Each structure stands twice: as structure tokens, then as C-alpha cells.
């Protein structure tokens, strides 16, 4: 048994060194594919963080018509305060025309056309509402109720912004997932090709091995180990890449002002370790799959 293990390891290493150029290409492709997979995981987790924060701080804005009477404004204020179990009345704020216009100037700083349509006279005033409940359906039904109040122009829900983030998140996930799968396929193909080349280079040796009674598994194992090693090295390289990327992102995020929501895009280190473990396993798997297909397919030399 020891002789067989020694033989398999020696042949694996010899073959690994013999086809260095092709091996490097296979390792590099595996590493890039796995890095993309790891990045997909991290981006996904960052988006989830962002969505979670928005959910925990769900806000509603009740826009009041610019021509609303003080009585109508008082009625809206009273109605909002009439639901203290649903709405955090301490955080309820009314933005008058001056404040609303000042905020609009900040919001639309990148959109001068919209800004030019607004004046301190025409801008709707607004109530900023922070609900106490996590039940978005309840908040939505309250919003529907507030829309019917006299003087209310519109009610906007932060929840609607979630759809944008969710759509963006789904889009990024789909794109990175497709790219990852394509690159993983390419990596398997390259490992397959490396092993096939290695087997072709040693076809005479394989022929002799078969003639003297070596089993197919004895012949296959060094080639399969070689593929496994390529995938694993790609996995280790991708782990290093993911770690560097995440460290750079984490320190970059720290430069943003607090409360901008960007800080929530940091991935916790426990999750990163899990991703790295997955990348290693995935690397070993693509190496094993690519080499197993080649070793089975091209044994009849």
C-alpha cells in the first residue's frame, strides 16, 4: 500500500512539473473563476446587509399639498399621532416649505432639471414618519389610509426603494453567477485539457502499464490527484484574492460618513471564512471533475 501511495504522489508531482505552462493556465483560470464566485457571495451578503438595515429603519414620507390649509396640516399631524403603537411619535417630524426646499436641493443636486421646477412656494411640505412596527404590510395599509386625508398630495414608502435595491441585487447576483459558472466551466475544461495532454505525453507509459497488469485506478489516480492539486491551488489563490478584496473594501468603506448606509456593506469576518472554505472545496471539486473526466475518457491510449 505504501509503495502505491508513494508511486501516486511521485508521479503526480512529476507530471505537475512537466506540464508547467498548461498547469499554470489551469490554476490561474480556476483562481479567477473561484474569485468571482467568492466576490458574488460577498456582494450578495453586502446587499443583504443593506436591505436588512433599511427594513429595520423603515420610513414613510407624507407629502402635503403646497396649498393645504393649516387645519388640514393639523388634521394630518393628529391622524399620524393617533397611532402611537404603529408610529414612533417622538421621531415624527414636520418639514415646512423652507426645510423641504433645503432638503430637495440636497436630494436633487445631481438633477438640476427637477430642481429648477421646484420653488419654496410650490414645494410640498412633508411629514417624516418612522414606524415602530416591522410589519411592512401594516405600514403600507396606513399609507393607503393617509393618502385619502384632505391636503395629502402623496405618501412615499422607503419599502418601495427596497424593490430597486432588490432588483439591483438580483441583477448583480445573476450576472456574477453566470460569469462564475462560465469561468468554472472554462476552468474544468482547462484542467481536463491539461490532464489529457499529460496522458497523451505518457501514452507509451500507460500502454506498458496496462500490458503489465496495472489497474485502471492505479493509472488514473496520479492524474486525478494532479487535477485536484490544480483546483486546490486555484482555490487557495482565490481565497487570498477574496481576503485582499474584502480588506480593501472594508477599509475603503470606513472612509464614508456614518449614516450613509455604505457602512452596512461590510461583510463580517466569520462569513468571509465560510466563503473561503467553500472556495477551497469548490476548487478541489472542479479539479477532481475535470481530471476524472479526462482520466476516464483518455485511458484507452
Amino acid at each position: 500500500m505504501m509503495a502505491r501511495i508513494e508511486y501516486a504522489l511521485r508521479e503526480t508531482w512529476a507530471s505537475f512539473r512537466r506540464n508547467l505552462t498548461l498547469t499554470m493556465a489551469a490554476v490561474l483560470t480556476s483562481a479567477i473563476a473561484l474569485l468571482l464566485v467568492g466576490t458574488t457571495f460577498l456582494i450578495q451578503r453586502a446587499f443583504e446587509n443593506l436591505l436588512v438595515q433599511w427594513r429595520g429603519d423603515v420610513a414613510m414620507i407624507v407629502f402635503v399639498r403646497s396649498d393645504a390649509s393649516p387645519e388640514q396640516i393639523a388634521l394630518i399631524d393628529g391622524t399620524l399621532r393617533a397611532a402611537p403603537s404603529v408610529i414612533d411619535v417622538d421621531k415624527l417630524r414636520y418639514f415646512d416649505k423652507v426645510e423641504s426646499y433645503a432638503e430637495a436641493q440636497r436630494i436633487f443636486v445631481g438633477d438640476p432639471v427637477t430642481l429648477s421646477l421646484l420653488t419654496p412656494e410650490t414645494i410640498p411640505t412633508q411629514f417624516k414618519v418612522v414606524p415602530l412596527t416591522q410589519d411592512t404590510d401594516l405600514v403600507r395599509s396606513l399609507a393607503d389610509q393617509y393618502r385619502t386625508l384632505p391636503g395629502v398630495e402623496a405618501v412615499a414608502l422607503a419599502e418601495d426603494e427596497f424593490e430597486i435595491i432588490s432588483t439591483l441585487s438580483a441583477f448583480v447576483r445573476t450576472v456574477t453567477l453566470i460569469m462564475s459558472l462560465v469561468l468554472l466551466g472554462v476552468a474544468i475544461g482547462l484542467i481536463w485539457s491539461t490532464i489529457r495532454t499529460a496522458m497523451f505525453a505518457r501514452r507509451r507509459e500507460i500502454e506498458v502499464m496496462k500490458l503489465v497488469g496495472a489497474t485502471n485506478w492505479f493509472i488514473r489516480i496520479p492524474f486525478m490527484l494532479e487535477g485536484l492539486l490544480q483546483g486546490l491551488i486555484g482555490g487557495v489563490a482565490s481565497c487570498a484574492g477574496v481576503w485582499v478584496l474584502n480588506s480593501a473594501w472594508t477599509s475603503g468603506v470606513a472612509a464614508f460618513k456614518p449614516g450613509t448606509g455604505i457602512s452596512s456593506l461590510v461583510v463580517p469576518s466569520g462569513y468571509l471564512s465560510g466563503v473561503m472554505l467553500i472556495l477551497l472545496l469548490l476548487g478541489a471539486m472542479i479539479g477532481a471533475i475535470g481530471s476524472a473526466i479526462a482520466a476516464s475518457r483518455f485511458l484507452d491510449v
Partner: protein
Amino acid sequence: MIKLDGVTKVYGTDTVAVEGVSFDVAKGDFVFLVGPSGSGKSTLLRLMSREEVATEGDVWVAGRNVSDMPPSRVPFLRRSLGNIFQDYKLLLNKTVFENVAFALEVIGKPRHVINEQVPFVLELVGLQDKSERLPNQLSGGEQQRVSIARAFVNRPLIMLADEPTGNLDPATSEGIMGLLQAINETGTTVMMATHDHRVVNAMRRRVVQLDRGAVVRDQERGVYE
């Protein structure tokens, strides 16, 4: 030791290599398979080592019917066979010692057995002083001796030799035949395909003659004709 019973091998749909071949070979026999090129000699040897599967009939080797043997058992059949070829099939990047050791290594023999058996068999074929040479540093006859050493190192029950003297001059061929005879005298059955009439006539052993895939003569102590 070997029994062929109505063996036919057809390549593709209509290329008949051997047809209805039947004969027995007892343990310790030395048999020449003779006939012109394309008469089916090599095909018969390949059927015996299960490099080919018979289209019809049974091929019994060392007590096993190799025609319906599952592929997973074939390596174990081959461990009881020694194969010798006209082109030696040596590994050019390995030394004489490594070439012979390779046959033991790939069937999982431990290092101490290899270190014991290989020098012994190299001495048997007269190459004990050239064990560190590479094949291309040897003459044709010496390369064939390495090939024989590799085939014999695992003490096979049967030696299958396909034109082993085909590339050698008469004097060297004589040496190779002497080796095969010595191996045969240890009890190993030898089946040798050849169209070298000199060695057949000199040895006067059993001759099975093939013509267009069929046995046309099976003669004890025969000559080439």
C-alpha cells in the same frame, strides 16, 4: 494453459482477422505461431492478452475464459502473462533497471521486492552491468533482453512474444531464442508469433501455421515450411 475454441475475430463489419481457430497449449509448451503477414498471428496473441475481444468463440488463458472476462479482471489476467514485442516498447526516459522495476512497481510490489528481483532477472538476461543505461544507449538485441527481463520479472505463467527477433540479426536472434528457451525450461509456457524461418527450423518445437486467419497446420517438432 491456453485453449482456443472456435475463435473468430472480425474488425468492423467484414474484415475477418481469424476465423474458427481452435487449439490447446499445455503448461510448459513452446509453440510457434507462423504464417505470412496478415495471417492473424498478432491478433491471436492480442486475443490471449485481452487487448482484443473475440467476436465468436472462447479464449481460455491460465484457466480463465478471457472472452467474457469483466474489464476489471483484465489487469489480474495480465499479471500472469509476459508480453514481448518486435519494437520492445521500452520507456526511453527510464534506465534499464527502472524499465524492469516499472513492471513490478505498477502492480504495487514493495521496494525491497523490486530491489531483490530486478538485479536477479537482469543477471539472467546478461545485462547486470548495464542497469543504469538508457534504452537508446543499448543495441537492438540488448533492448530486447530488457523487454524480456521486464516480461519475466513477475514470473508469468505464459510468455506471449510477437516477432521478438523481427528487428534483429541472426546471431542476436539466436541469443534471444536461447533466453526464451531458458525461460520455457523454468516451466513458463511460451507462445511466439514469427515469420523468421531460421529460428523455427533451429528450435524444432510445436508449430501452428495460420493462413488468412485459419489454422492450416498444427505440428509437433515442426519446421517453418
